[in-house]
């Protein structure tokens, strides 16, 4: 009984919070935008700015994985592989062909997406854990290829002097905060992409697959196709992020893309709240800032990090921001208008 | 012997049992009838400890067993043969039965139980080494009941024992229920086959969307027009 009561209370809390946000969404969005755009002028050191960029990078990675894991319910333990493909492809395009960042990044993302499709095809008949295992193997194989295909990837020596993006004749760097703003733009675009997808029949198809695949099939959803699509989109986003990462860090090697990265991304997704977009930002903010903030713990900080993951799963497995919206469903504008009209025309549509 | 008072159970947000109370006396066969989803299995689950109850309590022989874990409830002498049989498909008949007597330490008693069950179900004896998954539906049901009997329960709960069985097998199962009862085991029965269930029971409760809507003597209930209409489609 108590439990239900408490559930009711927290529902109310969420509703109040959400109505508040809804009511003041313009000022809230304005202030957040202002803060984000103004961060570089607040006197933060480059070190802090860099952490902000890393948070942005991991937000993008989490958003990418979230499409696959959070919405479609397919757990990937090999996203470092797509990340690496994006990073290496983009770097090679700009190093060897002199492609500019935009072209290189799209090239990286497209190749990652193609690999996403290739991985998805054989894995779609696999269920749950087995699918995760194949993605894990994929991540390791990508690393092996990066190490051994010396002629192209430069093997363990890695790629260095990856050029920084230039836009409108301006070279974007950490110092002039160009990289920061580019990150903001990318995060905004990817967030927009995710939002648009989720709030459409495609997003509903993804979610229905996660919720009950058989029922989804019985509603006529071509689940194989949508699972493959989720893989492709997820890999695409991850690939773009890889390209951005490479040009920011300037030097990549196979060891930049280990299994640890894959688990970090998935930890962020779960930590923030699977199947929510807001959660990805908080998740990466916390998990990326964590090792930095807790540097004073020295040796113990990764013990504590592990502990945080364990405790989190124990006490809040739905993630920090993993609540379900309690606001009414947002009807499309056209629907609202026609409903208003119908109300005037009385209740003729009350029957099928 | 078993007393349930004001039991409330939720499945997620579904209020499956809405404050039901009932009682079973030693030596009785009591059946619980009602349509699919009325809450019959939830009731058994709550007694056996499979389903957590939100409020109310269950006492067995004056001992409070509300929300005890299932394995401890078995030790007290309550045994459930679940719906859909739920035998261990990859284990042999013998192993399945052996698991039924998991709580028994005494070797002699265990072999007595084996003898009793094999006497009741000679078919199972013929298939000792066969894995349960290869048995026919009727044989699996026998195995499930036999398995539940292995712990020598005081109270045996059967969830839809006639489900999916051929008419002659159904008859046989109900004859068995009567003979098990005559050997001294109290039985709580869930059955869709209301006619059959009422024919072997002393008393019955009728469940309807989480509430007990009727209760009484089995014969009277069998002749009650409301029961006939709702569950037998006659009248």
């Amino acid at each position, binding site marked *: 009984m108590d439990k239900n009561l408490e559930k009711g209370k927290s529902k109310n809390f969420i509703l109040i919070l959400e109505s508040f946000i809804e009511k003041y969404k313009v000022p809230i969005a304005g202030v957040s935008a202002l803060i984000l755009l103004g961060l570089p002028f607040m006197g933060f*050191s480059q070190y802090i700015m*860099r952490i902000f960029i890393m948070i942005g990078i991991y937000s993008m990675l989490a958003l990418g994985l979230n499409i696959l894991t959070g919405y479609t319910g397919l757990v990937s333990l090999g996203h470092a592989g797509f990340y690496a493909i994006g990073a290496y492809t983009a770097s090679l395009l700009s190093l060897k062909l002199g492609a500019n960042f935009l072209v290189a990044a799209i090239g990286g993302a497209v190749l990652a997406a193609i690999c996403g499709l290739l991985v998805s095809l054989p894995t779609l008949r696999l269920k749950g854990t087995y699918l995760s295992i194949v993605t894990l193997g994929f991540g390791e194989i990508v690393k092996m290829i990066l190490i051994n295909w010396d002629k192209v990837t430069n093997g*363990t020596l890695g790629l*260095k002097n990856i050029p920084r993006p230039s836009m409108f004749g301006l070279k974007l760097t950490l110092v002039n905060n160009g990289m920061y703003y580019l990150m903001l733009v990318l995060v905004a675009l990817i967030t927009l992409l995710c939002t648009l997808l989720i709030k459409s029949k495609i997003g509903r198809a993804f979610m229905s697959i996660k919720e009950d695949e058989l029922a989804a099939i019985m509603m006529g959803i071509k689940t194989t196709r949508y699972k493959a699509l989720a893989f492709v989109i997820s890999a695409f986003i991850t690939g773009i992020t890889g390209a951005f990462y490479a040009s920011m*860090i300037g030097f990549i090697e196979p060891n930049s893309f280990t299994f640890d990265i894959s688990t970090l991304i998935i930890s962020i997704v779960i930590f923030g709240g699977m199947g929510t977009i807001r959660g990805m930002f908080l998740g990466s903010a916390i998990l990326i800032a964590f090792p930095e903030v807790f540097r004073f713990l020295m040796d113990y900080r990764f013990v504590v990090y592990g502990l945080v993951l364990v405790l989190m799963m124990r006490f*809040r497995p739905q993630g*920090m921001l993993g609540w379900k919206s309690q606001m009414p469903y947002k009807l499309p504008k056209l629907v609202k208008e026609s409903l208003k009209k119908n109300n005037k025309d009385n209740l003729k549509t009350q029957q099928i | 012997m078993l007393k349930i008072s004001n039991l409330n159970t939720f499945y997620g947000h579904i209020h499956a049992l809405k404050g039901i109370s009932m009682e079973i006396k030693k030596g009785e066969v009591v059946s619980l009838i009602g349509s699919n989803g009325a809450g019959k299995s939830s009731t058994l689950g709550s007694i056996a400890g499979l389903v957590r109850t939100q409020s109310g309590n269950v006492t067995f022989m004056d001992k409070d067993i509300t929300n005890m874990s299932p394995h401890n409830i078995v030790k007290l002498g309550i045994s459930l043969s679940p719906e859909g049989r739920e035998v261990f498909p990859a284990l042999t008949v013998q192993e399945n039965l052996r698991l039924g007597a998991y709580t028994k330490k005494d070797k002699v008693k265990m072999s007595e139980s084996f003898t009793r069950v094999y006497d009741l179900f000679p078919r199972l004896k013929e298939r000792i080494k066969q894995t349960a998954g290869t048995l026919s539906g009727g044989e699996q049901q026998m195995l499930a009941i036999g398995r539940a009997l292995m712990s020598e329960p005081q109270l045996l709960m059967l969830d839809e024992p006639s489900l999916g069985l051929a008419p002659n097998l159904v008859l046989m199962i109900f004859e068995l229920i009567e003979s098990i009862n005559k050997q001294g085991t109290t039985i709580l029965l869930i059955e869709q086959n209301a006619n059959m269930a009422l024919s072997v029971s002393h008393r019955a409760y009728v469940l309807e969307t989480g509430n007990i809507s009727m209760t009484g003597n089995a014969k009277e209930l069998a002749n009650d027009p409301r029961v006939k209409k709702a569950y037998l489609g006659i009248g």
Partner: protein
Amino acid sequence: MKRKLSIILTLAMVMGTFAGCAGKTSGTSSQSGGKASGTIKIAVAGPMTGDNAEYGKGFVNAANMMVEQWNAKDGVLGKKIEVVPYDDKNSGEEAASIAQKIVSDKDIIGVIGHFASGVSMAAAPTYQENKVIEISPSASHPDYSGMGTYIFRNNTVINVEAAAGLDMAINDLGKKNIGIISIKTDWGTSTSAIVKKLVTEKASTGVKVVAHEEVMEGSDDYSPAITKLNAAGADVVICVGMYNLVAPVSKQYKQVNPNIAVVGFSNAYSQQLLDLGGKAVEGLRFPVIFFSGSENPKVKTYVDEYKKRFGSTPSALTSQAYDSVGILLEAIKTAGTTDRAKVRDAVAAIKYDGVTGNTVFNEKRDVQKSFVKVTVKDGKFVEIK
């Protein structure tokens, strides 16, 4: 209850994060805003946690020892010196992030580190952009010091060392059939390539590489590679790796072929090689620039002191870190200022006589040193005269 707990947890974490960021910001801005304070800081960056933490910790130990000696003599330029350790987990990403942190502290004149080449190279551009001196005691990637004018390397350049090692295999041991087993890292790959090239140049004398096997770091099982080398008829194995490769390879190889001769590199020179290798590393030879058993009194006091304080013999890399700190401090003293550009010039021009011999940087900011040939005898390192 649970919900409350989790909300508290959430809040605590969020607050912690922001408080942490804010705290740090104010800290750094006050430092960068005001004038440099009364201490001179030297950053030591390397893996303090994770798989290679022993190296990072060795760097810190060495740096502390050196700094204490200076502080005992009133520091440098009348200021106390402070060692600030930074953990990069041996990851490029972390290192790059730390580099940002280091360069935002105006009291830090230079950095000793990082450990692996790849990691050092990920951090180097930041140091270069911000004109902070980086001296890596361990980076070995051929391109490392070319990353910028503030980037120095106090580790031997592979070409010279490779030649020294090869010389031992061919001339001292008189072997002709060379097998190479190398670790698949930037250093291992480039070193083995150089060894191979050198062997080809000597082909006329009948020396040849019979087989070359690349192994992954931390595989622990080297038997497939060893089986191949052995089948190819190698009579000497040049083992390009740290102690954690040389010791197990020697062990596993000697089980198959007890007569095999093994030649290593200075990176493998550490107490742990003896601990880990035991009998199997008896007779192992390699060139080093630092020899802990040296009769040189300077080295002796250093080694004794280190042993007393940390309970083990310092490795070559640790000693190079020790000298690197010395070089940096000496340069500050010479420059007479903490102006980084001037200190940099002083480092570039330095002639430093340390425990790892005479250190001079060439125009590529690499060091040139002479090698001592060392072998293992009765569980100890012994110089070959």
